[in-house]
């Protein structure tokens, strides 16, 4: 299994932002969702998930509130800030550009 650190630097941020863009989620939910949506291909190690969440929060892209959750108790739920939404757009653009470039390269090389 690839280690989480094998994820491309910055990709984790993009995945987190994209995941909570649809609806606010707690850490556990984010981990599960990334795993499920990627068809179990990507497993986010908790060792990097929480530091990443805290970093994004410190940078002001996301904010967090303790609220009742589907876990049956209060959990720290993360949601996108307006700036985070813009940041997501930027990161998506960058990602698309990068992945299509890589795609091209692989096809033509």
């Amino acid at each position, binding site marked *: 299994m690839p280690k989480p650190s094998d994820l491309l630097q910055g990709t984790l941020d993009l995945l987190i932002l994209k995941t909570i863009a649809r609806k606010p989620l707690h850490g556990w939910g984010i981990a599960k969702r990334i795993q499920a949506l990627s068809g179990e291909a990507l497993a986010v190690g908790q060792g990097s998930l*929480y530091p990443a969440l805290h970093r994004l929060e410190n940078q002001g892209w996301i904010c967090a509130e303790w609220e009742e959750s589907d876990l049956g108790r209060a959990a720290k739920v993360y949601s996108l800030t307006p700036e985070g939404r813009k940041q997501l757009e930027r990161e998506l653009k960058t990602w698309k550009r990068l992945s299509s470039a890589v795609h091209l390269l692989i096809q033509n090389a």
Partner: protein
Amino acid sequence: MRISRIIKRRIHSLLHRGSADAELQREIEIHIQQLTQEAIAAGVTEPEARAIALREFGPIEQTKEKCRDTREVSWIQDLTQDIRYGLRMLRQSAGFTAVAVVTLALGIGANTAIFSIVDAVLLRSLPYHDSDQLVLVFAAPLQRPEAMLGISYRDFKECRAQNRVFSQMAGNVFHDLTLTGAGEPSIVNTGVVTPEIFPLLNATPLAGRTLLPEDGRQGAAPAAVVSEKLWRSRFGSDINLLGRSITLDMHSFTVVGILPASFRYPDGAARQDVWIPVAQDPLFGPLMGRPGTRMLAGIGRLKPGVSVTQAQAEMKTFGARLAKEFGAEDAGFTMRIEPYRQAVVGKVKAALLILLGAVGLVLLIACVNIANLLLSKGTSRGREIAVRMALGAGRARIVRQLMTESALLGLLGGVAGVLLANCAVWSLAPFLPPEVAQISSIHIGGSVLGFALLLSLAATLAFGLAPALVATPSKLQANIKEGGERTGQRGGERARNFLATAEISLAMMLLVAGGLVIRSFALVTAADPGFDAKNLTRAEVSLPQFQYSTPQQWTAFANELLGRLHAQPGLRDSALGAPLPMDRQGQAAFEFSIVGNAPLPESKSNSADYSTVSPDYFHVMRIPLLRGRLFSEQDSPSNPRVAIISETLARRYFPNEDPIGRQMKFGFPPNSNVSREIVGVVGDVRDVALRKKPGPMMYVPFAQEPLYGGEVVVRSSLSTAGVAAAISQAVHSIDKALPVTDVESFPDALGRSVSQERFRTLLLGSFSGIALVLAAVGIFGVISYSASQRRREIGIRIALGAQRRDVLRMILAQGAKLALLGLAVGAIFSFTATRLMASLLYSVSATDPLTFGAVAMVLLGVAVTACYIPARRAVRVDPMVTLRYQ
């Protein structure tokens, strides 16, 4: 919006660290519970499920630490925590802290003290604008280009008019004149200048104006500028002094301006009272028209963009042209320039830089010492560090914390060092040679404090980093397994041995340097000056020219004075000489030629130091007569001119022949062509300074070559003060208004002539002392640590029947090995480094084998002694105790 959110959040986490940590804990706990429930759902028992969850989550504490690290204010928290923790550690091991701080204080203090002198002497900015453009202009004989001679007024005028390299050029000379008509007659130091000097040095008058070019013309109305000090002290700060006249040597001068106390030339001159144009000077004014009188020192300001080399080249061409055009006076001379700053600091620069280097070595040794202490301490803290790393602290974090501790030590040492430097500068003051700096200009100011701070931080890095890295190994498990105590022992031991060796070699370098200057100082002070300085006192009496203007008056005064001195019981042995050896104003030297010898080629000339003396002079000074006779009362102006020469002159210029009866031509201008018969040869005298080997000398009888004043020398068992009082009394009984100055005992005068040597010997000597102590402490530390680590091994050896003596020898050998290695490396470095100080040494080679050998022996002895104490302690222990203990 985003920024404010970020700031709010950071302040929040800074203020509510505890709640932020609790939230983090809760968040992670929820995640683990979810993992647990998943496992239970898969059909495992609850405790097992919990274990699986924990395993899957990974190292909780490390994750938490990473999350904390994302709060970017964490460094503030970390820093305050580190400082608090560091202070606690330093307090806990107070002994270690004290040793380290004292060591550092010595190193930083010595550096700061020397730097404050360097700052005051070498780095200070000169008080003139664009001072790098200022150069001294002077003449030099072709065969002695290092000599700085004055230029004649004619040559000065030629140079000022024709050069293309100076934007301005001025001439100056300083001498004393007598100020009368304003209270008691007094001696004023007078700057005799060409008026360009004021704009050249951008002098702005306090009131009135400075001298103008018109004032410098011959026949202009005499004008003078007075100093603020004279204006305040003699004229009661009366602004109406402007336009009034003052009397200098019976000549009247109109005061046109007052110069502020801040203006001085040369910078650092002790006393300057009056400035007058050369043309009006009672002494030199009349000599202006004589092209052979080299009376002016020149100063020029280079045009922008003109380099010193360019200017020097032009002056060389110019000098050659003068020599061709005015062969009578200027043949055999060239013109030279020297940057003003270099002329002011040049002589002491090398010595100061060497001192700075030496003191840098002291600090380096101090750092090595502390690094060694920290290394041993870091090793014994291995377990603590291993546990903290296991609990999630990153290596960088721990290194940062150890460095904070070091920085605290460094700053404590720095503060103590600055205090120490302050005391040191004060206690060094009496030893500071006057030509190095005015003590008042040395102070611990901003740049010095900055230097000290920089040193403390650099020292912190130097002694803190390596131990911190060694103390935080990358392999954790081994540390915990070894119980911490022997953690990093192998790497640590190698590092410690290296440091001890380095310390010994650094100490060796310093000790060799110290040893060399001490030896050379001992040789200088033991040098025979050629006369007996004991019980000898000197005093200067100078006659104002306006009162005593003829040679007959000078001779009459001298005879009268000596007569009155001889009449007093304690002062029977007194004589007159001008100049005396070690004169503050330097020695007089004249060219001479030997009658009957083939004339020298034009570019060559012989010169010797010159002194005019009363008949008793040689007897009073106890300068031995080697051949012929001494002067007597018969050598009067009406009898043939005679001279006595020194042994060196006789040997050098009259090889294999008897100089007695031969004639030489020399004399004080304008008598430079008078023939004098050599009547005697006396012993050599060191007249310039003790370190200067005696050169050729010629003496003439005062009665035949009188001067308007001279120096009285008295051999008496009375105290210097008593002799001084008696001389003053005798002088004042002849003329109340005559000042007696520069009273000094001859041993003091000799001491003054070696003040620079004494100063650097004192400093280098104490630096090597400090180095020796630090090196001893260093090797003591290494050996005691290693001996305590080997207690178990020693116990086993003794239990198995080894003799204590053998064990002792084993430990001593370990120390001796380090010391010998250090000595070898140190000897190689010293061999290269001491060459740099060859110019400071007197009749000792920079690679003097005796000094090297002695230093090596001393260091080896000290090192082995330092090892002996821990070695003895190690073999004294009861083997059973050590074996049981471990």
